[in-house]
């Protein structure tokens, strides 16, 4: 009897250990996927670290772009940016057009964002300080360190903190120049040059996404 009970005990142990391991893995994967710090400075530090791992990996540009897109989706207020960059025009278009714009903008944003980042293989960024400018916004100041080819670049991250538990990036201010504002003015220029026709903007976005 004793001889027969031993394997059962061992199997039970194995099952329990396997479940525990699986549980730990699931928890850690979940935490890695969603648990960014609620402190804006740490939040940016974590994003930079995550992006650095992707950029310095030996993966292809396509895989890097996909990984960076995942980070961006979790940490950037893409929908807010979509509305902001469309300006007042968002009030003039119908819900179907707005939905189409949101979809196109997300694809455009991710392609443009990852394309800018994948040019860097091993960026060295120092997170310098953070400044709470209002109850909704904190500016996190960072510095992209100079290399033998490129000068140092000041990058300020405008972090939206209305929900303190889930900060989101709303703008990048590179050497004092707002990328969100630039994007907004670019879209406005396309619209104003084409009788405010939203379809021309759709076409321009589609061309960029497909090129």
């Amino acid at each position, binding site marked *: 009897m004793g001889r027969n009970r031993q394997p059962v005990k061992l199997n039970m142990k194995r099952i329990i250990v396997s479940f525990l391991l699986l549980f730990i893995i699931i928890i850690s994967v979940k935490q890695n996927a969603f648990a960014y710090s609620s402190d804006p400075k740490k939040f940016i530090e974590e994003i930079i670290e995550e992006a650095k791992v992707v950029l310095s990996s030996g993966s292809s540009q396509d895989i890097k772009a996909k990984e960076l897109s995942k980070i961006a989706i979790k940490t950037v207020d893409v929908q*807010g940016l979509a*509305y*902001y960059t469309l*300006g007042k025009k968002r009030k003039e278009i119908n819900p179907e057009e707005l939905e189409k714009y949101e979809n196109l903008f997300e694809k*455009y944003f991710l392609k*443009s964002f990852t*394309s*800018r980042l994948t*040019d860097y293989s091993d960026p060295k960024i120092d997170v310098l300080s953070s400044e709470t*400018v*209002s109850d*909704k*916004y904190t*500016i996190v*100041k960072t510095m992209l360190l100079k290399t*033998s*080819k*490129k*000068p140092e670049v*000041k990058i*300020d991250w*405008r972090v939206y903190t*209305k929900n303190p538990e889930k900060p989101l990036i*709303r703008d990048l*201010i590179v*050497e*004092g*120049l*707002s990328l969100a*504002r*630039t994007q907004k*003015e*670019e879209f*406005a*220029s*396309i619209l104003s040059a084409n009788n405010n026709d939203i379809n021309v903007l759709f076409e*321009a*976005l589609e*061309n*960029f996404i497909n090129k």
Partner: protein
Amino acid sequence: MSKRLKLIFSVLAISIAIYAPQLSAAEKYTANECFERFSRATLKFNQGLDKAIFKPIAKGYRALPVPIRSGTSNFVNNLRSLLTFSNNVLQGDFRGASNTAGRFAINTTVGILGFFDPAAKMGFEKKGREDFGQTLGVWGADTGCYFVLPIFGPTTTRDAFGLVGNVFIDPFYQLTHNTETDIVIGNDNLSEHNYYYYRGTDAVDFRSKNIESLESIEKNSIDFYASIKSLYLQDRSQKISNSPISDKSQDDSEWEEIDNQ
């Protein structure tokens, strides 16, 4: 008073006369177009010129060893600080002027004609450049309209005036072009072409530091002209106010609207 000095004072007097009524004008990020079709064509022309001439030169310059590039950059920045000094004074920024003068004196002597920057280590902080367009902005001049000049690139009515004004208030230009100062201080070697060598080197140095950033803007823009316009106007605005956008209380009314939607 020499003819040149008379001309300088005339330019200043005209500038003040033109702009004084608008002293309270707030600095803007936007500007109307003067002649957009012409500006778009000029930008394309400039891009072609850049691709054929300036970018290859900048790439060649970048192939030089870092100490040479760094020394050259320091040297032209040191000469350029003379124009900054004039504008510091015209803007009434005497603290800035003393910092600029201190940096120039130390870097020209201890820093061996400006090739090194010991002043930064001695507490004389390296600050941004000032030009006459910025000075007009500080005096309250309105931006005017936006256009693109061949070779010189994006500008506004105010900055185009500034471009002309810069020549007259740049001490290095005066040293190299004014025959009277040649006699007074005996600067036989400072002939006119030295000024253009310095300006050309400064432009190449600037271009070499921005090869990737310009490529990235070009690659990721759906309207390159509009991107350049926006970046130029933002840059000028922050240079005039001497504070980056993120440090100001931004106009968040549009974001507020989105949040409450």
